[in-house]
């Protein structure tokens, strides 16, 4: 498989290690109420689709970036890849991102 690294172009999948569903980006707040329930879902429950899947790959033998790759788990077609950091920052509030004001 070839992964289309957003900065480096197509790279051999053997340079990467795979973590799983990109939902791992949305870590619940550990100090919130009912954190236990939220973490149970976060740690154990997955959609596991046969089809388009957003997933986390680590470019271990490369630039050590984490990527969110959109891949069809049935055909292996890869529809896109972005830096996980960018995806994670997008879902933060401005204050959390450290933006001024």
């Amino acid at each position, binding site marked *: 498989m070839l992964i289309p690294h957003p*900065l*480096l*172009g197509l*790279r*051999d999948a*053997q*340079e990467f290690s795979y973590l799983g569903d990109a939902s791992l980006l949305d870590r619940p707040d550990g100090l919130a109420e009912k954190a236990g329930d939220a973490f149970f879902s976060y740690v154990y429950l997955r959609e596991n689709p046969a089809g388009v899947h957003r997933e986390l790959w680590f470019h*271990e*033998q*490369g*630039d*050590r*970036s984490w990527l969110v790759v959109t891949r069809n788990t049935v055909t292996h077609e890869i529809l896109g890849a972005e*830096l996980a*950091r960018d995806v994670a920052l997008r879902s933060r509030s401005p204050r959390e991102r*450290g933006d001024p004001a």
Partner: protein
Amino acid sequence: MPDLKPITALGGDTARRLHHGALELEENTELALASLALRRGATQPTLCGIDLPGPGAWALSDEIAAFWTGPDQWMVEGQNRADSDFASEVAALCPGCSVTQQTDGFAAFEIRSSAGETPILQLMAKLVNIDPIRFPSGSATRTGLEHMSVFVIRRAAHHIAILGMRSAAGSIWHALEKHILRIEDRKP
């Protein structure tokens, strides 16, 4: 000067060399390395006259060289400065950056061809899964070589460098030597 004697990554007193056909393989024991990462809010520094290169690139000036290793991260090379506190020197030039000594983290091997780029391309085809056409002079990347993570730098059309974990220097040398000895004069 400390009164301890250093040894090379391959465990010798001097750099190891191999000459076969048009190819020369040499352990580069005098290469200083420091990793450089931007902190938040820092502006990208200009180091000794070079603009830090973008993804996949390697840049050279009179004193130092640098290659991109990740978003906002580079590796700085200082030839013949392996004994110095290279990280401190680089840190002084790069305020607001995180700099870490890496000289002894890596074993560096230089491979030069005396017959143009053909032997280099033949060798790369056996070592790494990199399209040589998209890896001209001034390119650098990290990739896998015989199950080890290495940096590959195309310093010139006829000259590449391989940087890998110092502890695996013997395994890296073995892989390079094995394939260099097998390069025959055949059309690539």
